[in-house]
């Protein structure tokens, strides 16, 4: 800590604070930036997402409401409104798509949009289907209406037709009965005339009877024309036949009767019986006809009544079904329609029973037509029911698709809201965290600043105090030292003049020394020249020795050559020996004939042996010579070495002598220089004396400066401590004053300077912190 400069300390304190502030500010800026990004995502993506989802939700809700209205009322106005809403939904969806394409944070939105689009397509499709089916249902209703109308009209027509018919039938019957009654009357009249004739025998009566009978024949065709029943026709035929028979019988009877007495009684009686029988048949037939007519009349009426009841029943059923249809439509309950369908089975039974009692083909056709209309009605009703159920099913599916849409929109909106809440929460958390951090950081920085300020102030004031102390000490010491310097300078001046006298003496003795030295140098030169001559002689001797040794080497080489020749002679001898031996071998192998050759071989061998011997002797001799030559050469080498040593020694002696001569010269030169130096010294000593006096006056000047310095130090002390501190100044001042006031104590100065200097030096070493740059730091502080 003490090695750091004051400026550095203060800068360090401020730097720590600045770093802390920068860190805090950086952290704050970083957090704010991050929040800004989050909030911009919130503003650009999540809030639009929620908006679009809500818009979509509203549009979808309205669309569903309109479609439901359409489903209930089937009014085109609702459907048109629904189409408008659909367009709005699609616009919203497009908005959502473009948002999803731009947004970075909305990953689920794209999938949701696909779901919504799919559901929307389904919904559209279903709506179209609804429209179609509604149209069909309308058509069905029209068919129902028209068929019910025609059903009722036909049924009513049938009923009125039946009544008309009944009336006609009754009048016909009455006419028939009237005619037949006429017949019966005529018949009765004819019988009466007949009986009268028989009683009276008046032919006029008989003729009356016949004409009476004949009168009916005029009515017969008419009766036939209005009678369709075969039994009745038979009765009519029977009546006619009976009438004819009666007429014929009466005619025959008349003829018989005219005969009078001549008339056969048996024939008459027979004819009478015939007449009675015919009359009986006639009456009988007429009676039967009448009875049948009566019977039929009552039956017709009854039948008609039954039919009317049935038709009424059918009409009733038709009404009931129609009412059910209206009711079901009014209540929007297909169950009623389904129940109404059961009425058709009873209607069918009614139709069947009606058909069973209807004989008139015209009527039958009418009934069939009504029935077919009823069947059409029923089919249409079934179709209508199916369509209705289909419509209901479509409605359900539509509402399901709508639900999917709404759920998708709602989840998107909810998620958007959640994301928004989360981001907002994050932002709030971050900002509160940031503000906490800022408060803590600022408090910490403040505390740190206070601590740093405290320590820096302390670290400045303490050394400054020390410095002031040191300075005041130093000032005193400088003053005393300057005094000592002045006294020392004076004594030095004296010493200098003494020195000058001594130097003159030295100069004279030096001159004597110089002449001796010159003599020495001359002698050494001569000796050197002589030694050089010796060296030359020795070198010559060396040359001849070398030549000698070279010739000795030549001799040795020649002897070697000779020994080589001898060796080859020896070899030749050996080879010859071998040849001789081979010859001996050959000679031996040749046996007796080779004996002479063997002797020759032996001789050759002997010669070879002798040659070898001679060679061996020569070799021995030559070896001896070589040995002696070698010895000579050795001697020469030894001599050579000795000469070499001599030459070396001579050279060394020469070198030494020349060195001595050189040294002597240098010495004389040196002495001259010493002389010059002494002259210089003399001059310098005199200069020194003058300088010493000057320095004495300078020392006095210095002590005055020291006083001034002390005054400055005092001011400094006052500045720092705000009061005058004698502690720093008192003792030294006294001491210095004493010293300045006694400049005459020059003899004491010889003992004192050493101690004083030492103490000054020591004090300097004790306080290295005095070196601290004083002015700048203090001002800065």
């Amino acid at each position, binding site marked *: 800590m003490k090695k750091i400069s004051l400026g550095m300390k203060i800068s360090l304190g401020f730097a720590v604070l600045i770093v802390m502030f920068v860190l805090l500010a950086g952290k704050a800026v970083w957090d704010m930036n991050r929040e800004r990004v989050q909030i911009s995502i919130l503003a650009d993506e999540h809030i639009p997402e929620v908006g679009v989802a809500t818009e979509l939700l509203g549009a979808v809700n309205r669309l569903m409401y309109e479609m439901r209205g359409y489903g209930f009322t089937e009014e085109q106005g609702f459907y048109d409104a629904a189409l408008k809403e659909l367009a709005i939904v699609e616009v919203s969806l497009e908005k959502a798509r473009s948002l999803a394409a731009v947004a970075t944070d909305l990953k689920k939105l794209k999938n949701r949009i696909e779901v919504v689009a799919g559901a929307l397509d389904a919904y559209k499709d279903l709506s179209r289907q609804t429209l179609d089916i509604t149209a069909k249902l309308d058509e069905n209703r029209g068919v129902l209406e028209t068929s019910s109308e025609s059903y009722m009209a036909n049924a009513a027509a049938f009923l009125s037709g039946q009544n008309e018919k009944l009336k006609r039938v009754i009048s016909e019957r009455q006419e028939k009965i009237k005619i037949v009654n006429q017949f019966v009357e005529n018949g009765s009249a004819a019988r009466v005339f007949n009986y009268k004739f028989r009683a009276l025998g008046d032919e006029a009566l008989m003729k009356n009877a016949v004409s009476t009978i004949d009168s009916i024949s005029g009515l017969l065709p008419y009766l036939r024309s209005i009678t369709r029943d075969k039994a009745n026709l038979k009765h009519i035929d029977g009546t006619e036949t009976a009438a004819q028979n009666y007429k014929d019988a009466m005619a025959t009877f008349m003829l018989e009767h005219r005969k009078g007495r001549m008339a056969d009684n048996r024939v008459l009686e027979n004819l009478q019986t015939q007449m009675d029988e015919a009359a009986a048949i006639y009456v009988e037939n007429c009676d039967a006809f009448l009875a049948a007519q009566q019977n039929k009349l009552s039956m017709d009426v009854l039948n008609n009544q039954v039919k009317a009841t049935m038709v009424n029943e059918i009409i009733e059923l038709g009404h009931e079904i129609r009412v059910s249809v209206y009711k079901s439509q009014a209540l929007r309950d297909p169950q009623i329609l389904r129940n109404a369908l059961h009425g058709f089975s009873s209607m069918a039974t009614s139709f069947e029973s009606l058909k069973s009692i209807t004989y008139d083909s015209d009527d039958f056709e009418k009934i069939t037509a009504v029935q077919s209309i009823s069947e059409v009605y029923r089919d249409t009703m079934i179709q209508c029911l199916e369509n209705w159920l289909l419509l209901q099913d479509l409605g359900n599916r539509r509402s399901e698709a709508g639900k999917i849409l709404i759920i998708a929109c709602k989840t998107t909106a909810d998620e958007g809201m959640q994301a928004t809440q989360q981001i907002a929460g994050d932002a709030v958390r971050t900002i509160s965290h940031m503000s906490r951090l800022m408060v803590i950081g600022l408090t910490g920085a403040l505390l740190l600043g206070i601590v740093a300020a405290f320590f820096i102030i302390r670290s400045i004031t303490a050394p400054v105090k020390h410095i002031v102390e040191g300075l005041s000490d130093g000032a005193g010491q400088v003053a005393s030292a300057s005094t000592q310097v002045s006294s020392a300078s004076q004594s030095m001046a004296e010493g200098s003049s003494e020195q000058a006298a001594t130097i003159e003496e030295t100069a004279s003795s030096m001159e004597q020394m110089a002449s001796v030295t010159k003599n020495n140098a001359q002698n050494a030169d001569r000796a050197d020249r002589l030694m050089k001559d010796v060296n030359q002689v020795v070198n010559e001797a060396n040359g001849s020795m070398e030549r000698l040794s070279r010739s000795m080497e030549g001799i040795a080489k020649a002897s070697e050559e000779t020994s080589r020749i001898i060796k080859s002679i020896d070899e030749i001898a050996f080879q010859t020996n*071998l040849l001789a*031996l081979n010859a*001996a071998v050959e000679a031996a*192998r040749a046996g007796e004939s080779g004996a002479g050759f*063997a002797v020759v071989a032996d001789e050759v061998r002997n010669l070879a042996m002798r040659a070898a011997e001679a060679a061996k002797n020569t070799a021995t001799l030559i070896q001896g010579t070589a040995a002696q030559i070698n010895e000579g050469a050795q001697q020469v080498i030894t001599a050579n070495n000795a000469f070499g040593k001599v030459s070396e020694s001579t050279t060394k002696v020469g070198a030494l002598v020349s060195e001595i001569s050189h040294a002597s010269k240098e010495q004389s030169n040196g002495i001259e220089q010493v002389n010059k130096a002494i002259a210089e010294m003399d001059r310098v000593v005199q200069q020194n004396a003058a300088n010493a006096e000057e320095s004495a006056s300078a020392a006095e000047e210095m002590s005055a400066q020291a006083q001034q310095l002390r005054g400055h130090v005092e001011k400094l002390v006052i500045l720092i401590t705000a009061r005058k501190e004698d502690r720093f100044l008192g003792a030294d001042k006294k001491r210095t004053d004493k010293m300045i006031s006694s400049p005459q104590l020059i003899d004491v100065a010889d003992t004192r300077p050493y101690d004083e200097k030492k103490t000054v030096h020591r004090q300097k070493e004790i306080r290295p912190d005095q070196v601290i740059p004083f002015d700048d730091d203090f001002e800065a502080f």
Partner: protein
Amino acid sequence: MADGVKQMDQAVKQMTMKTGKYLTFTLEDETYGIGILKVKEIIGMMPITSVPQTPEFVKGVINLRGKVIPILDLRLKFSMEAVPYSERTCIIVVEILSDGATVLIGVVVDAVSEVLNIREDEIEETPRFGTRLNTEHILGMAKMEGGVKILLNIDQVLSTDEIASLGKV
């Protein structure tokens, strides 16, 4: 043919007689002799081509004027210390009877001395060193002025199986 028979007769006679000329040579300070008729030729040392997988004493083969001749060192054969060959070292080419055929074998000796004529009375029987010791390869001992010379039955010396097989090379 007649010459051959005559030669053979002479050889047999000389072999049985032991009298005759002997070529003497030295091996480690001792002088040995071989019947001169067994000797074919004496030649100086020449480069020997060594043959693998042969006993130590077989040094190899040389080419003697177009003939390949096996060479063996008699020092090694007699289990003496091997010495480096000098300019005195010679090869004695001998004719050996092996399985009835004549083969040429070169024998390396320290030096060849001379051809000596030795009489019967100068030759003594091989002393019996003991029954176990095989002395078949020694013909006898020649008492001469310079000492005793050992006369070798070179056929016996070189009649071991190895040499027999060498002859077939």
